[in-house]
């Protein structure tokens, strides 16, 4: 769009929301404190898999300060399995789909450690937790289902007996004909890969405050959700209320990353219900232990994969069969394994593709998307296959990638399979070679390989280089909406339905409006996440905020701009083409003193006397919706230099480079912040963070002492560069950037690590740890000697 040359759009504007956040004045759910408020705590299953024989809550109920104790029996008809958030995809071959969704409180059986069984409401959280210790549940322990391969054995214990199998879903997607690729191949590489993704570990845990006002007959819910509007709609339906009786507010949220869009968490269903039962406000703030046990996670996939190539390194086809650990229930459908299946194809021409997966029930926490949402798994498989192929074929690792990139003139590019949004996997636009070239230049690819590596080695240092490419499907539908309104004081209010968890929406959305209306960014207030402010929408996920809500905001701002021009042209008696908007005014080009304040126009558009002309609306206000036909595909290349201590297996990142293409950049500061945060989580995923369940399904990593989120000491400074290939499928040309940083870090570590030891070993598993690195180095030395 041409407006990019002007003042706001595309500029590194400092974030509007930061003063509030940095001085501790932003409202988070736990800041909500209402008169007469009660506090909730949950008795959670200590077993991964057990039958519940009896529940005795009498002692807990009798404790002073305890107001109510609820079990599944007490919920009556309100006890229902949760909705299936994402239905089965319209793929050609899906022999199995077993819909099993979580229940508000476990009734006959528990299926993971941490599953809620009893809700206690008390005068304080302290009393509520004391009461939990008085609850007596008689369990009959059942064997845990921890390993996905063992779960498929014919005599395996069943997570859901009535399903008759632990297979939650079985999906096959194909493009072309793998057999043809195999027949034509000079080389076929075959490996098993294990990729384990972890826990989002948001700085703020989940939290809910529900307040049923019996006089007003309204329910207000403050919720750490990424999707307040669907939560409002769902709660209204479940509680028998109309949508206008329910207001859901997602205030400032300390990180979402995907798990906060799970609908509905058991607590989300129960706290509002209990508030209506007791006619008092109730607060539940998840503690860190609960967060590790009961918030959704991502976990591992086991891929058996093959790649068929010609001798000169052209990909003929890829074959992949994988198992996906989906946990105890499958409320989010198949989004994560579908993302893995689709994103594997990456920026490459893959003429023939066969991909099959089984999602497997286990007695562990529920798996739903977490930043990257399965994309990591797919990218790891493809990038590893290419590295191994390059080695076998004697090709440079960047050359094999370059050779297979989809050429820039081949877009839109149809991969002929179904993506997570149920639309065909078609890439809108892309230009991959410039990003690769730029990354090679920034990391000093040739210089490192030709000079520096040997110099390090002469000093006894093992330093390796990694360089990998990826795509990220972003900005999917269905739609978002926005209302833009100029106030009489000249300031602008923008309301949209998506929630915000730190993405900088208050600034980037304001920039979109500022560009259209010529109003300074700081005079634009963005309201997100409050269902009373905007009725329609879905939520913040799949890197879609800027693309979908941003485009709706753009359309609404453009409509207001047009009304401004129309009114001003009448008032000033000039053609709209001769008018400009800047500094909160509309004025005649070349005659800035012939100007009108936007605020005055807003007043004029809302007269106290006289009629608003037919077919117009009062005020300077417009509401618009935007639904992209398909997602926008972002892409990028990451590169790094990694030093490894061969004696201890510890690593140090010497340099980290990201070249990223998210289409048109609205605010480079915010984009880089997203990249930095994503890379930090990616580094965690690659080398620090690992969810460990023991053979009984007990979570061994239920605190930050054991679940190792990297800190500022482990995350290096990053150099970020942009390539801009606008998306033709939205008016901003934007593509999402929310997950990009996190996606390719696993294969990057793997490649750099191998390079540091001249490919003496192969890395086929993520996450790594110092002990694993030491074992790899040690093992390869033993093999040599």
């Amino acid at each position, binding site marked *: 769009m041409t407006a990019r040359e002007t003042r706001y759009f595309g500029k590194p504007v400092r974030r509007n929301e930061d003063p509030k956040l940095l001085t501790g004045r932003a409202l988070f759910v736990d800041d909500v404190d209402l008169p007469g408020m009660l506090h909730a705590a949950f008795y959670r299953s200590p077993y991964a898999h057990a039958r519940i024989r009896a529940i005795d809550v009498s002692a807990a109920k009798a404790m002073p300060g305890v107001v109510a104790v609820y079990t599944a029996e007490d919920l009556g008809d309100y006890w229902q399995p949760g909705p299936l958030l994402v239905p089965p995809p319209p793929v050609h071959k899906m022999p199995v789909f077993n819909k099993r969704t979580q229940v508000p409180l476990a009734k006959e059986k528990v299926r993971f450690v941490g599953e809620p069984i009893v809700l206690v409401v008390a005068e304080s*959280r*302290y009393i509520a*937790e*004391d009461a939990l*210790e008085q609850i007596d549940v008689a369990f009959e322990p059942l064997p845990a289902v921890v390993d996905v391969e063992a779960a498929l054995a014919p005599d395996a214990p069943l997570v859901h007996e009535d399903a008759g199998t632990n297979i939650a879903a079985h999906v096959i997607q194909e493009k072309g004909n793998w057999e043809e690729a195999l027949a034509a191949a000079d080389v076929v590489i075959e490996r098993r890969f294990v990729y384990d993704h972890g826990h989002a570990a948001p700085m703020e845990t989940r939290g809910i405050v529900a307040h049923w006002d019996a006089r007003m007959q309204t329910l207000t819910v403050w919720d750490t959700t990424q999707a307040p509007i669907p939560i409002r709609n769902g709660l209204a339906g479940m509680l028998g209320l109309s949508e206008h009786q329910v207001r859901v507010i997602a205030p400032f949220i300390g990180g979402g990353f995907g798990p906060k869009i799970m609908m509905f968490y058991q607590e989300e269903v129960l706290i509002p219900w209990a508030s209506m039962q007791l006619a008092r406000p109730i607060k539940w703030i998840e*503690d*860190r*232990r609960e967060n590790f046990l009961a918030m959704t996670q991502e976990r591992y996939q086991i891929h058996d994969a093959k790649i068929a190539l010609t001798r000169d390194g052209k990909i003929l086809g890829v074959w992949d069969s994988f198992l996906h650990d989906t946990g105890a229930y499958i409320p989010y459908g198949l989004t994560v394994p579908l993302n893995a299946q689709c994103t594997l194809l990456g920026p490459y021409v893959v003429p023939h593709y066969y991909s099959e997966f089984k999602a497997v029930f286990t007695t562990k926490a529920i798996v739903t998307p977490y930043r990257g949402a399965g994309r990591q798994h797919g990218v790891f498989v493809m990038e590893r296959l290419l590295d191994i192929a390059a080695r076998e074929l004697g090709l440079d690792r960047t050359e094999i990638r370059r050779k297979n990139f989809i050429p820039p003139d081949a877009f839109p590019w149809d991969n002929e399979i179904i993506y997570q949004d149920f639309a065909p996997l078609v890439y809108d636009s892309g230009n991959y070679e410039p990003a690769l070239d730029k990354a090679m230049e920034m990391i000093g690819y040739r210089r490192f390989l030709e000079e520096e590596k040997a110099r390090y080695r002469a000093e*006894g240092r093992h330093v390796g280089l990694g360089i990998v490419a990826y795509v990220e499907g972003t900005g999917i539908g269905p739609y978002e909406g926005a209302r833009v309104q100029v106030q009489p004081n000249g300031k602008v209010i923008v309301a949209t339905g998506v929630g915000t968890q730190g993405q900088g929406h208050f600034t980037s959305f304001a920039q979109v409006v500022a560009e259209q209306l010529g109003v300074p960014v700081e005079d634009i207030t963005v309201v997100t996440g409050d269902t009373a402010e905007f009725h329609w929408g879905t939520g913040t996920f799949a890197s879609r905020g800027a693309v979908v809500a941003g485009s709706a905001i753009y359309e609404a701002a453009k409509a207001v701009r047009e009304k401004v021009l129309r009114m001003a042209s009448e008032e000033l008696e000039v053609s709209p083409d001769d008018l400009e908007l800047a500094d909160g005014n509309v004025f005649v080009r070349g005659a800035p003193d012939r100007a009108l304040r936007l605020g005055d126009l807003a007043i004029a558009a809302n007269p106290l006397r006289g009629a608003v002309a037919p077919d117009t609306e009062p005020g300077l206000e417009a509401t618009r919706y935007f639904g992209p036909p398909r997602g926008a595909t972002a892409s990028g290349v990451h590169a790094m230099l990694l030093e490894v201590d061969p*004696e*201890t297996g*510890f690593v140090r990142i010497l340099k980290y480079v990201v070249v990223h293409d998210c289409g048109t950049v609205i605010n480079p500061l915010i984009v880089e912040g997203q990249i930095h945060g994503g890379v930090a989580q990616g580094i965690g995923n690659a080398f*620090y963070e*690992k969810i*460990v369940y023991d053979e009984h399904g007990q979570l*061994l*990593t239920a*605190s930050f*002492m*054991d679940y*190792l989120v*990297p*800190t500022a*000491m*482990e995350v290096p400074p990053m150099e970020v560069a942009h390539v801009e290939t606008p998306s033709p499928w939205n008016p901003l040309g934007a593509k999402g950037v929310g997950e990009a940083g996190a996606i390719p870090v696993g294969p990057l570590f793997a490649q750099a690590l191998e390079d540091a030891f001249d490919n003496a070993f192969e890395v086929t598993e993520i996450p790594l*740890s*110092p*002990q694993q690195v*030491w*074992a790899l180095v040690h093992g390869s030395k033993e093999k040599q000697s």
Partner: protein
Amino acid sequence: MKPPPFEYVAAHSVEEALDVLVTHGWDAKVLAGGQSLIPTLNFRLAAPAILVDLNPVSELAFIEANGMLRIGAMTRQRTLERDETIARLAPLITAAMPHVAHPQIRTRGTIGGSLAHCDPAAELPAVCLALDATLVARSQRGERAIPARDFFFGLFSTALEPDELLTEIRIPPMPPNTRYAFREVARRHGDFALAGVALTLQLDEAGRIRAPRVALFGVHDAALLSESAMRLLDGAAPSEALVREAAEAVAHDIEPSSDIHASAAYRTHLAKVLTARALRDALGDALGHATE
């Protein structure tokens, strides 16, 4: 993660604290910096009937030096880290402190709290072993001085009796020609160590090693001195071969446990690698060109 109910007493003197301890014995817990105790309470892993808070006891926060270096048990770890007297008289402490958790934790955490808690992977017990420190315990029965090597029994277990309070740490002056080194590896900076070494040794006029004290942590049920390594080093002339031999020898003295972060075999390997590195750090020029 809220603690079960407990009674709380803010002690304003050592005597007040000892009164509570003699009355309640094992049912009482002493609150110093609270960096381990409070999470333990919040996880409901401990449910003491009464907490005795030492924070108001100002007489326990001091650093004094006249011949012997004396450190009050309630001295904050951040103070140890930055204190010039300590840097001069016991620089091993100064070298170790940045590895103890994070600045926020060190600002609350105390030396006495860390020693009395006796986490097997904590730095300060090993530092006290390497410095040949003496730990002073008081009770209404009187005062006793416990050599560091007799203080740390095992996992969260020390020589302190339930009516006793750790009040002071005494560190003998380092003779001239004393060398020291501190090495550890932790998964992330500030985590409890997977393995670590704190050591001191002297070089006599002939350039031989005297009075070596090699303390290891994270690789046993409590910090310990590696007698095997010390026997090899004592009286020996520094050499790379000696360094390697001594490093190998620590394996005889330790029994690391396996957990999700490191196996026993890997911890043993790390103990050897770190011992060798620490010895090279300490010996430095005395190793001459023998280093790799």
